[in-house]
């Protein structure tokens, strides 16, 4: 059985918008999967379903043998420790130092009182420091998060997710707010640490070239439907049309 197995996933928002219809795919540990598609294709919704921020209307998301769609809020909170999330807008806690932000990756594993007072033991600190080091940001460890540049913030957020020692890493448009050069650097850091730890990684991304460059496999979403699932080389111009220009409209 695959590490992640999504079957017939459907999600309808309360306003009637059908964000995902019948999405199915599986992925193995260590794979790096890029999810491409236009804005509103359901990429973010898919990731938010996998970490339980959105409740699926139908279908199943089985991660490591456990169905996320069947979980209670309590169980979800416990499962989220195994799901790293990297956000487009970084979402670091601005007023806390980079290292503390990274250490937050351990909060899901800790007794809530111990976590609340901010006590992290030596092992946890070593892990956090190691992860900051891997994204080349150890020298910024004591800086407040709001003093970091965009690229640095995103690396801290990658380190935070890796400190969770996740089974799966979800990255929602991780480089959409960065310039092209930084995008390549941040994505290569992300891909490198994910490969080192053999973590299944799903990356939402709209730059197809970057997807080809860093991902083992590409999934194309259009209007909530999987229209392509295969290796980067198989992504032809015709398929690109199906992903991006399905309605024959010029791309904005």
């Amino acid at each position, binding site marked *: 059985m695959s590490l992640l197995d999504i079957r017939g996933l459907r999600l309808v928002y309360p306003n009637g918008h059908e964000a995902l219809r019948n999405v199915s795919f599986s992925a193995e540990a260590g794979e790096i999967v890029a999810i491409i598609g236009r804005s509103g294709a359901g990429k973010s919704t898919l990731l938010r379903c996998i970490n339980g921020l959105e409740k699926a209307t139908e279908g199943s998301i089985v991660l490591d043998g456990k169905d996320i769609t069947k979980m209670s809020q309590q169980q979800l909170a416990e499962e989220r420790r195994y799901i790293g999330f990297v956000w487009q807008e970084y979402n670091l806690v601005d007023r*806390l130092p980079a290292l503390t932000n990274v250490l*937050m990756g351990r909060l899901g594993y800790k007794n*809530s009182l111990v976590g609340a007072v901010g006590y992290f033991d030596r092992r946890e600190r070593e892990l956090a420091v190691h992860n900051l080091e891997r994204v080349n940001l150890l020298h910024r460890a004591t800086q407040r998060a709001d003093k970091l540049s965009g690229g640095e913030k995103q690396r801290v957020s990658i380190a935070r997710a890796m400190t969770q020692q996740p089974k799966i890493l979800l990255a929602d448009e991780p480089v959409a707010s960065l310039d092209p050069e930084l995008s390549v650097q941040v994505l290569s850091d992300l891909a490198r640490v994910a490969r080192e730890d053999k973590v299944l990684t799903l990356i939402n991304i709209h730059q197809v070239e970057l997807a080809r460059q860093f991902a083992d496999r590409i999934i194309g979403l259009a209007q909530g439907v999987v229209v392509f699932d295969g290796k980067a080389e198989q992504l032809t111009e015709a398929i690109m049309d199906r992903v991006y220009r399905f309605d024959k409209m010029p791309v904005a």
Partner: protein
Amino acid sequence: MEIANKEVVVQTEAERKGPPVVLRGQLLSPFPRITLSGILLFALITTIFLWAVQGTRPQPEQLVRGIPNIVNFVTRLFPVDFDWHAIAKLPVEISLPFSIQARYTDTLDGDATLEQVAAELRETVPLDELLESGQPMPEQPQVSAPVQASLLLEPGEFRITNEPSKLNRVWVPGILPAVIETLQMALIGTALAVILAIPFALLAARNTSPHPVIYQATRLIMNANRAIPELIFALVFVAAIGLGPFTGVLALGIAAIGSMGRLYAEAIEQIDPQQVLAVRATGASRLPIFTHGVIPQVMPLMASYSLVLFEHNVRAATILGIVGAGGVGFALQKYMALFQFRELMGAVIVLIVAVTIIDRISAHIRQRLI
């Protein structure tokens, strides 16, 4: 955000109707255009103010007649009398919140019992000298009989020298102890208010309140609380638990729940929910989400509001003494009642200096926080 939205609206309207009509002459006119709505608004505001003035029953002729009385009062404020007192050392009184054990070995008169030595120690030896245990006494008595003495100062025991020696005498205004008590009340009253207000704020902030009903109920309680001034709470507590600064502390602590709770709640509502969501996504439970996602974001605002409250409480604590809830107010009222206006002026000057110092320190800290 609002400005950005407005710009968008202007653009879309401009697209629909073409560019808005702006009269060149209007732009050049040095006077504002008079419109009917402008006139009505002006009339309304004027009416409200006139109505309010009439409600306060102004009596300018009485003010004129009262001027000699005011002059008389002002002349009687001088020369200022600070009611100087000599005291041994500052701070004037230290009430020990813990016990101190001091041991002392020396040769004293052989007739002295341990109790006498201890009593003598209590009378004469300053506290700091006692703390250096094992040091010999400065004056060596003649008779040599080794005596070991130990002294235990229990919590709450005072070490005050009422008859100061000439060496370490300090002159202070007589009102100073009361002013210091006022500041102590303000500090502890503020701390109490902050501790009490935080849970209310959590229940009254839309994004942390567990249920809309609880949210509304908490807001209601806080509004009611805000309508009642400190002085009323002080009167209640004086009646319930008696006179003294502790009563004042309780009044200050309770009276600020409403206003502080509301300010804190608004600070909590302004936080970036995405940062909290990110902490939640790590699998953290409620309490760590709060301490790592919410607290760091609201800390500077909350600390700043709390300092403003402290400044306010220093002034409020002055008033509370008038109803017997501790602090300088009692002395002020006494001076007034006994027509000791020179002493009153002295006390007021000391108070002004103290309040100014506190305000400056607090403003300085606040600047560094934001």
